[in-house]
């Protein structure tokens, strides 16, 4: 496989970027992540993940608007790329295929 591979945290964050669509930047991703997964994550960690995704060409970014809360500092707004969407779709397809074949867990 010559394609980029991503870890599970990267996958989750990439999904969040895809779902949120608008105003995707550090703090908003942190909040979304926390509300979706119930787990906490720090801003430096999110920055690292986003930067790595960008290096892999799965997201792009541009500098966006500032707010008073940010002390007038600009945000880096992220957006998913086609490659990013494709990798998520591929992952989902693989998993769906597998789930098709999974037996029912009787005990549950």
């Amino acid at each position, binding site marked *: 496989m010559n394609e980029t591979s991503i870890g599970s945290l990267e996958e989750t964050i990439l999904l969040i970027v895809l779902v949120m669509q608008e105003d995707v*930047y550090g703090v908003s991703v942190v909040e979304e992540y926390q509300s979706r997964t119930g787990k906490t994550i720090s801003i430096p960690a999110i*920055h690292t993940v986003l930067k790595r995704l960008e290096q892999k060409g799965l997201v792009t970014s541009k500098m966006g608007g500032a*707010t008073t809360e940010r002390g*007038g500092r*600009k945000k880096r707004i992220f957006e998913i790329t086609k490659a990013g969407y494709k990798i998520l779709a591929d992952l989902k397809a693989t998993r769906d295929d597998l789930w098709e074949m999974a037996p029912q867990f009787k005990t549950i």
Partner: protein
Amino acid sequence: MNNPTPPPKLADRFLKWYCHEDLLDEIQGDLYEQYHNNLSTKGRRTARQKFTLDVIRFFRPSSFKSTKLTVNTQILSNYIKVAFRVFKKEKAYTFTNVFGLALGITCSLFIYLWVNDELKYNQWPAGVDGIHYVLVNQIESSGTIHTWRTTPQPLREVLQDKYPAIEKAAITNWGATLILKKDPDHVTLSGHYGSPELFEIFSIPFIQGDHQLLYKQPESIVISESAATRYFGDDWRSKNLIGQSITDKNSRTFTLSGIFENIPKHSTLKFDFTIPFDYYVLINPSQKHWGNYNHNMYVKLAPEYSTASANDNIRNAISENRPDQQETAPLILQPFSSLYLHNKYEQGQLSGGRIDYVRLLSISAILILILAGVNFMNLTTAKSAKRSKETGIRKVMGAVKSSLRAQFLTEAILMTLLAFILSAFFTMTLLPYFNVLAGKEIDSDFFTPQFILGSLGLILSIGIISGLYPAFYMASLHPILSLKGIMRADRSNALFRKGLVVFQFVITIVMIFGSITIYKQLQYVFSKNLGLDRENVVKMGFGDLTPQTFEIYREKLLKMPGILGVAASDGDPTNIGSSTSDPYWVGRDEKTEVYFSILAVNSDFIPLMSIQLKEGRNFDRSIASDSNNYIINEVSASIMGFDDPIGKDLEFWGQKGKIIGVTKNFHIQSLHAPYKPLIIRMDPQPSLMLIKTKPNMTQEAIASMETLHKEFQPDRTFDFTFMDKAYNDRYKSELLVSQLTLYFTIVAIVISCLGLLSLVSFNTEIKTKEIGIRKVMGASMGSILSLIGQEFLVLIIIAFVMASPLAYFVMQDWLDQFAFRIDLDVSLFLLAGISGFLLTLLTIGHHAIRAALRNPADALRDE
């Protein structure tokens, strides 16, 4: 923004400081925003903590500023290129500088190796902290305390059984040799009689067998692996040798109980075999006596005891347990690990020993390193001043101070690096010679990565520290002045360099003084009239000779070429070990505690050694009662308080006799100690032959001895020692220090002269025009020489004045350890001062004369 509680200032500023400008907005923005959110939801405290924590988490290479932290490699390579051009252009300067520094580093490196090796001693046993050696203080009624390294045999059992502080105690005698037959030759092993607990105290591992048999059977033995190799051959490991009988030359048979691993070479305790102490007591029953202080005692402390508390516990073990006699004799415990370096006791207190030399040499090493560094600084400053035009042009072209500093520092560091490489080369080349000189076996395996890293760190710091002054000085010069080549503008600079030269010469003069003093004291020691003639005397052990066969041997030997006389004694008269407080004479105060050294001789001894009799007569073999009579020395006579000692009764070791003679005092121990009281008696069982050879006929005498030896004791190896050599060998550490100081002094002189040389060349260069003008105006050669020389002589005089008291205190302290010593008189100071003076003249002379002889026209046309 009107925020009532802004984020922590310090963390925010830290973020701004390290964060890359491109990233600052998003990172800081995100952190601010989250801080703001947290402030309302989680409270101020948590918000602030989280902010700070996140700032720290962002502190990683990916968010760092890059531009200012990276080194501009292009500029650096330019610095290096310029540096090598300078080295090439100024070959002599570079060489002296690098050489001086390398010399200093090499010296310090050797000292480091030596000290390191010394510190390794006695660290080898497992649990070394608990292992101690037992010493005894013997207090004379005069208040003098003698510290003995030997203890009586019954003490061992008492210590081990009665005192909770002692877990185990082991005793050994002073050493023994074992000669084993092995065709066609003999194997001579050195070891001791020792109690088996020794192996438990020192946890000595066994390769075959163990030491248990030593507890049960006196005729048993354990040997070291090297002894096994020598006796059984290289392939002994493949055989099971335990239980074999080993028979020595005297047909004594021992059962082999075990073969132990070799004792490491860095040890004061060394042996190749142990025969149970029980065997020793069996053949020498007198050794069981409480009064016989003859043995080494090693103990292992119980884990809960420290040295001090254990010492309190056992201090009075002798007085509490000796049944036959009242005796104070408090015990001292000394950790085994310190036995090698701390081996001197004064008045019952530990007072140094070899550690003094370790300290002395360490200090010298540091001094020499400082000297070399100072010299480096001095040379660099002097030389860089000559490059003021280059600096000026660089400045005019827009070089900033920091880049000029960096340039000079790069040069300094490069030069130290060269010096380091050179000194590594020196060290490797000279190491074998150093090993011979110091009597060590240091391998080159000290070149470990840690060692190289450590020394590189040291080198870099030397480079930076000594390059710092010139770098700052040059960078701060005014560009116009430096372009004009005006160098003496700065007075403090000149003063600084003069200060350095004075400092160098203080150290050098102290070292010259030190090496002269040590040399003179050793000359004194070696040439001192000991009161007996140790020249041309050969010592040889009795071996198998009995007193009867000795008489025949003696008669025969006397008829052979080269032999002047033959005498016998029980030990080397220049190094008497045994002593006793037993002697009784009429009028002795019962409470008087005083120790007399005992020497046992035959009637030929006193004339052979040319010992002077003050009164009375020598022993006479034709007078039978003389075997009970005594000869004493002057010190003994005065202690006994006899005005006329001849004919007085004297009794000791159960032998009543009369004093028949008094000798003049002679040295029976090293010159560190004062004259001691001595009693000489006739020896029923001598162990040492003293053979006086005719002057210049030593070869013939040795040949005669060997012929006779083959006839009388064909089984024994022919082994002998010259008495004066044995005497000199006792001052080995002093000799070593004397040689090392000499070499150090030479190094210090070389380095200081290099410093002086740089200063004088700098000065004459500055004064070129002044000298030219003076010459045009008719100044004589002499007046110009004195113009240059004056300044330096003043410096040397200042250095001399500062060095003298320092040298006096240091050397007086060293001399104080000798009871017989030279005086530090004016001539020594003069010698050191004059040699300093001459060195200065020699060093500056060439430059001064060249400057004075120069054609003034050249000097004045110089622009």
